[in-house]
Structure formats: C-alpha cells, structure tokens
C-alpha cells in the first residue's frame, strides 16, 4: 500500500504544524546541496527561483529557447485564490470544498486543503513581483467567476493571466540566474533520470543545439514538466509539450497516477481540416458573458450548417440554451467535464452548427447589449438608449474584458465574433493524471519530485478552471521549499557524486542507443504520421466517452502502432546536430507507450467520474455515475516493462467532506 505521508491532526492545522516541525537545512549546508529543476513553467520557474533564494545550488532545464516560453504562458482566464476580496462568502474551506467536489471526489483532501491555504499568498507574491493584474477604478484587484463555483475568486490579467504570472516567475528566476544561484540550460531536453542506490541522483540531458548528451548530478531532481495532452495529437498544448521526462521517470520507478483522467475543455475553436496541427482554447472566462446554445429544431441546425440560415436571425424562442436548461443553478458556468459532455450530446444528437456538425454557439450578443450596454448607458445618463447604442456601448466593455481572445478567434477563423456568435467545441486541454506523489510532492523514487501538472495530486478526476495556475505556483513558491527539507536534511553529508559513476555512464549509453536506434530505422513514414494515428485512436476511444469494447480495441491498435513505429519511422539527419524531427520521434515513442497505459487505466476504472466518462456507468439523466465502494482510490501504475504494469492503489479518505453525487442543477 502506498504511503501518502499525510500529517496527522485536523485538516486546518496539518500544513501549519508540518511547516513548523519539518526538518530544516542550515544556510551553510544549503550551499552544498544541488537541485535539478526540469521545466520552467509556473511550477518550475517558481521552484527554481525560490530554492535558489533559499541558498540551494540550482540547475534549471527547459527544451524551449528561453524559460519564458513554457506553456504556462498560454493560460488565459485566471488564477483562483480564496481572498474573499468580493465579500461574497469565499473562504479557504470553500475553495477546498469546490476543488474536491469539482474533482468528483477523487483528489486527496490534505493536498487540496493546503492548496487552498496558500492560494492567497500566491496573489500577494505575484503582485509584489510586478504582475499587472486587472484592477478596479479604486485601484484594488478585480475578480471574475469561473466554472464550478458560486463566488468571484478568479484574479486575471485580461486573457493573458498565464503569460503575466509566468513572466513574473521568470523574472524571479532570471534574477537568480544573474546572481549566479541558478545555472540555466535552455534548449536542453531531459532524456533520463539517474538513480543510484535507490535514490534519484541526476539526469541525462541532450543539448538540442549541438546534440551532445550531458550528465548532471543533483541531490534531488524536480520534474516540473507539465501534462501529456499531446498524446491526442490535437490538443490545446504547445507543439513541444510532451510526457518524456515524466515517462522516463516512470520507467525508472516512479508510479504513474490516474493516467486516464484527461480534461476535455468545452470551449475551443473547432477543427477546420486535416492539416490542423493544434487546437486553440477560448478561455472559460468567456462563459461569464457568453451563452451557449444550439437551435431547438434539427432543421434549423441543418440550415445553419448549409449556410442557408444566419444564426443571428434565429429567434430567441427557437434557441436551446441547453446548459441553462439542464443546470439552472450553475447555468453556463458548470464545470468543464459537464459542459463538454453536454456539447457532445447535442452534437451527437444532430444539433451541431458548423460544417462538420461538431460545434455549438457561444453567444455574447445578449450580455453585450443588455448587461454591459445598459450599464454604460446608465453611466452616460442616457435613459432611453437605442438597440444600436446598447450594442456599441457593450462592444467596448467586451473588448476590454476579452479583446485579445476575440482577436485571436477572428485571426484563426476569419469570422468576427463581435458580430457573429463564436463557434466552439470541446478539445483536450489538461491532464489531471501524472506522476504519483506523496504529501511532500515526492514520487515513489526517493529524491525525485513532481510539481504542477506533471503530478496527479490536486484536481481529482476534473480540474476547475483557473486552478492550474494556482497549483503550479503553490507547488513551486510555497510547498516544495518546505517539503524538500524533509528529504535534504538527511542528505547534507552526501558529497556530489561524480558523473563518471557507472550509473551515469549506463544511463547515457541507454539514451544514446535509443537515439541511434530511431535514426537507424530509416523507414518510410514521418513521425507525425504515427502521432496522428495514435491521436485519433485516443480521441475516439479514450476521449470524452469511453467503453469496454473501444478501449480493448484501442489497446491492441496502439500496440500495433508501436511495432510499426519502431520498424517504419523515418527520422532524417543525425544525433549530433539540431534535429527537431529526432526530438519529436523520441517524444512520440513515449506517447505511444503512455497511450496504452491510459486506455488500460480507463478500462480498469469501472465507474464514471469527472473527465473519465464510461458509457456503461451513467445515471438515467446521463450524468457520471461513480462507484465509491470500489473506486475511491488513486490508481498508481508501476512499470514492469513496455506494455506491462502492476496496479497499486492509494485509498482516498474523506474525513472533512461528505462525498455525494455531484450536482450542479
């Protein structure tokens, strides 16, 4: 049985007590301890900067050309914090409760409570480091609502919150680089971890420019390498986002938690054709003011698809605002998994509105006119505004709130969303699963940690909007600086191990052999050919709805793809140069292995919960049907060999929250 190392005591005081009793490392010893941080997104940049401030010697790695480009940068809508600045009844407990419920009762209570406790500090820290959050005229911070909550606790910077937070963390990181406390290795990709005597002691990294393999020692290694949504080929992740670092760690002993928990985000720009390389999110914050609908009648939907009917001309009573209809309490702000499934249900039933039949409307016209237009008219003392005036006034407000998102939409689709309702459809966005970690964020390999999206810990089976940024920064700024002490306090006498050690040599040889093997295949098909095939299988069989037959088929298909890949992939160039195709090949090889595990996990979990929806487990109303008796646990998979795993379980204990059927009605 896995030991999650949750401290004893009441939930409100676990973290406080832990912080005051965790072993400390004195400043002189910190200077002789080396920490490797892989990935420089919110979790990695904040961890590297903070640990360096504390006096540790830090090495930070990223595969991008600069740490500032990590995919946290693309997060749009906001970051949650239990500040209760709006005086609307928010509290640490409420954020804790919302997160556990939103995760469909599949997250670990103690971790989530700690997350809620430190959430307020994140806002303070970010503001202090110069993050320009949105403000009200009085100069105080502004908030908005996100899905799955009934308070306004989301802080934001237009539709670029991730960018601003990451640049804040990045500037802290660069400050430490300038001070010589962090050595930065950009355009470097981690290709293996090195374990010595049962502890993680370093990594093998490839300098992507020269192609050379490098050995790096560390007393501890932190993986802050993000999620694995790109296993689906099409996702809202960046092109380079990958599972490789986490997967290599998994193959060296770190258990993988809940791999099948994938978040399908309800509001993305629909696929336009076969050439599509990625999908673009339209922030959840848009659901504050956008109303989601499809036509009530199938013939109207068909007419719209054929271009014979303009959606703006469809009368109010002929529209089906299906989220408002099905979930009156939360309306358009139901959690993501619920909203995504509802869109799929309408489209599958024939009400989809674009050429492919896979799109619904996200319409701002109503709120533009009657919510904001009227507000502005009142401010301007216009008592009897015309419809045109209302639209014009509202247009300005919408532009200020969501301008960059509207521009992005227009750029991609060529359609002006100020005049026409947006078309949206669900797409893969985030992975709640990841490396299994205990309360200290340590994986099952001593000295190897996983932070942010790379771990599995805080979001259960579904993540609430604006919580990913919160978790990344919580882990990096406020959790790991304490919890790593519990391990490093016992490592102070360990001298840096030479990278000539046989374990380093062996790991480097393995990495090098694998690269050469990829290059030597000289098959007929480019890497993307296999990635696209894998992605389609994952989306069709392990996406928004899953069933036994489909998953079983998918597993055998993925095994075939793996075989074919290793026989027929064509990777040009060689290993000792800048070779993006070779990088991609290694990542896709890992995605293929992961895809199989995800299907296996989805098949094993005979229930529906959050983002994991098994068609054979649903209520009469089509909602997810959990089985708490048999599945109230984390599935932590242990790697034996390719295609062969052992399942371990961590029971989830709910002492503070009464578990119930999730309802947003």
């Amino acid at each position, binding site marked *: 049985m896995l030991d999650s190392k949750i401290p004893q005591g009441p939930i409100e005081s676990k973290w406080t007590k832990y912080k005051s009793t965790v072993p400390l490392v004195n400043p002189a010893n910190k200077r002789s301890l080396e920490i490797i941080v892989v990935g420089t997104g919110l979790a990695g940049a904040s961890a590297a900067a903070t640990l360096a401030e504390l006096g540790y010697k830090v090495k930070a790695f990223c595969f991008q050309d600069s740490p500032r480009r990590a995919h946290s940068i693309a997060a749009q809508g906001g970051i949650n914090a239990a500040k209760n600045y709006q005086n609307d009844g928010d509290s640490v407990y409420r954020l804790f409760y919302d997160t556990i419920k939103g995760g469909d009762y599949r997250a670990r209570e103690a971790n989530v409570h700690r997350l809620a406790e430190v959430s307020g500090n994140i806002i303070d820290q970010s503001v202090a480091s110069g993050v320009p959050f949105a*403000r009200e005229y009085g100069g105080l911070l502004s908030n908005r609502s996100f899905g799955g909550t009934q308070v306004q606790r989301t802080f934001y910077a237009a539709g670029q919150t991730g960018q601003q937070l990451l640049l804040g963390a990045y500037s802290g990181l660069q400050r430490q680089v300038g001070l010589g406390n962090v050595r930065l290795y950009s355009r470097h990709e981690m290709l293996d971890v090195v374990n010595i005597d049962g502890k993680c002691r370093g990594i093998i990294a490839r300098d992507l420019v020269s192609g050379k393999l490098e050995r790096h020692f560390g007393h501890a290694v932190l993986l802050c390498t993000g999620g694995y949504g790109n296993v689906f080929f099409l996702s809202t992740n960046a092109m380079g986002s990958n599972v490789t670092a986490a997967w290599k760690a998994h193959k060296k002993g770190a258990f993988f938690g809940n791999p099948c928990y994938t978040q399908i985000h309800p509001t993305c720009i629909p696929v336009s054709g076969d050439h599509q390389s990625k999908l673009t999110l339209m922030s959840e914050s848009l659901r504050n003011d956008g109303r989601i609908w499809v036509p009530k009648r199938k013939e109207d939907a068909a007419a719209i698809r054929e271009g014979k009917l303009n959606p703006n001309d469809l009368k109010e009573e002929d529209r089906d605002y299906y989220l408002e209809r099905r979930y009156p309490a939360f309306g358009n702000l139901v959690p993501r998994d619920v909203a995504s499934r509802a869109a799929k249900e309408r489209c599958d039933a024939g009400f989809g509105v674009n050429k492919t039949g896979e799109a619904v409307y996200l319409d701002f016209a109503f709120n533009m006119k009657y919510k904001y237009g009227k507000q502005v008219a009142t401010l301007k003392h216009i008592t009897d505004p015309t419809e045109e005036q209302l639209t014009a006034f509202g247009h300005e407000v919408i532009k200020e709130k969501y301008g960059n998102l509207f521009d992005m939409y227009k750029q991609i689709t060529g359609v002006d969303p100020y005049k026409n309702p947006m078309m949206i459809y669900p797409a893969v966005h985030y992975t709640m699963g990841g490396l299994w970690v205990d309360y200290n964020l340590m994986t099952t390999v001593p000295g190897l940690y996983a932070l942010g999206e790379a771990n599995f810990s805080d979001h259960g089976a579904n993540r609430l909007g604006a919580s990913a940024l919160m978790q990344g920064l919580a882990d990096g700024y406020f959790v790991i600086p304490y919890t790593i002490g519990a391990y490093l306090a016992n490592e102070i006498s360990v001298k840096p191990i030479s990278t000539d050690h046989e374990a380093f040599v062996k790991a480097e040889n393995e990495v090098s052999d694998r690269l050469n093997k990829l290059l030597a295949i000289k098959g007929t098909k480019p890497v993307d050919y296999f990635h696209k095939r894998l992605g389609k299988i994952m989306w069709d069989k392990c996406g928004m709805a899953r069933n036994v037959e489909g998953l079983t088929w998918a597993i055998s298909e993925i095994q075939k793809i793996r075989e074919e890949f290793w026989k027929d992939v064509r990777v040009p160039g060689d290993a000792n140069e800048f070779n993006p195709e070779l990088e991609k090949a290694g990542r896709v090889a890992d995605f293929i292995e992961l895809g199989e595990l995800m299907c296996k996990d989805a098949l094993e979990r005979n229930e529906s919960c959050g983002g994991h929806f098994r068609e054979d487990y649903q209520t009469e109303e089509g909602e997810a049907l959990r089985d708490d008796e048999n599945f109230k646990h984390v599935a932590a998979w242990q790697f034996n060999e390719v295609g062969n795993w052992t399942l371990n379980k961590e029971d989830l204990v709910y002492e503070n929250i009464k578990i119930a059927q999730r309802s947003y009605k």
Partner: protein
Amino acid sequence: MNINLKVWRQKNGKSQGKLVDYKVEGVSPDMSFLEMFDVLNDRLVSEGKDEPIAFDHDCREGICGMCSMYINGRPHGPNQGVTTCQLHMRSFKDGDTIVVEPWRAAAFPVIKDLAVDRSAFDRIIASGGFISVNTGNAQDANSLPIAKDNADEAFAAAACIGCGACVAACKNSSSMLFVSAKVSQLALLPQGDPERNTRVLNMVAQMDSEGFGACTNTGACSAECPKEISLTNIARLNREYFAAQLGSDRS
C-alpha cells in the same frame, strides 16, 4: 492554392546559407503559415532528398514568442499585430512567391535554417528586468492600490512576448522596444520604484554589450510588433535612463 517558397537554408551557425526554392501544392486558405511548413516538411522527410526545414515554434497561439519567420521582408509577415503562427494562408494568393528568412541580427546568431539564438534577451532580463522580492516577503495584495490607468499601461507593456521581431525589423538591429517594455512595466508600478535607477542602467548596459544597435526612432519595431507594443515605451526608457544617470554616481 499553390505557393512558391524561397526559404533560407543554413546547416548550422558556422556554414554558409542560401535561399532554396520549394513548391507547396494544395494549400488550404484555412491553414496557418506554420502548418504549410508542416506539410512541406512531411513531404521532405518522406521523399528523403532534403532535410526538413528547422524553424522555431511552440504554442501556435501567438503568446509564447517562439516563432520567428521573416516573411517577404517583414517579421511575422504581412499582417498587423500577429505572430507567424497566427498568420493564415488566406492572407496570400494562389501562385504567390514567398521569401522566408530567419531574424537577421548580429545578436541573434542563426542556429539552423530559420531558428536563431535569442538568449541575449534572457541575459538582459537577468541584468535587471525584475523586482527584487524573495518568495514569502509579500504584503497583502490589496494593501497597495494602483491606479487603474497605470495598471493598464503596465499591462500593455508587459504583453511583450520577447519574440525579437522588433530587433529583426530595425535597420540598426536595436532591442530598445523589448528593453523599454520591461523598464516601462516596472517603472509604472509602485513595486518597481525602489530599483528604477539601477534597473534601467543595468539593462541598457547589458543590451549594449550584447551587440544590439542604437535606436534612431524610426518606429519600425513598434509597427511590426505582433503585440503592438507602443513606441511611447522607448520614450519612457530614455526618460528613465537620463533620470537615472543624473541621479546616479555611476555614469
């Protein structure tokens, strides 16, 4: 659509480069510019005659700042306010010939084909583009009200994605717009005030040592900036710089 490309090919930083012709057929107007390159690269790999074209890209939604193509003599191509990844083929016509080059600046050496090394920007930020506050020292966020106009202006400057288009557009390869965006953001906020003098002096010194050129106020940087960072920031940078020099014992 059929497109004729002339693409800069350069094996590595040490070798000579040249423009090579490619024809891409069956391009959909809904494709992004980079997706057209994906199609071409897939073909080059399958044919096995020529190596695929190396180019930087990551988020493909205009925010990471990694993509960097110099298209028909303009950074990020013909459209205003977009990055290369957000440029779509509907902005071109069937039969067009498009010339694609890397950013050209001494401070951005070519790594391969269209990919360049922009680590100079990281070093500039490391020299002063931050507020020196350690984690855990922050006061309550709302204890420091900031006028909305200032916060908004700071945000507009902070929207810089660090792509380097400003440098590529500038006839002097100056990075003043990039540096000024960061200096402005922090100068506009009260949190940035205590270090305003050292910050601007250090960042400008680092900028100069990286080999970027001087600013002659042509404004091409701002005109080509995908995030439309305003030239006002350069004026503010100059003001900050002169004020800092007057108030500093370093000169």
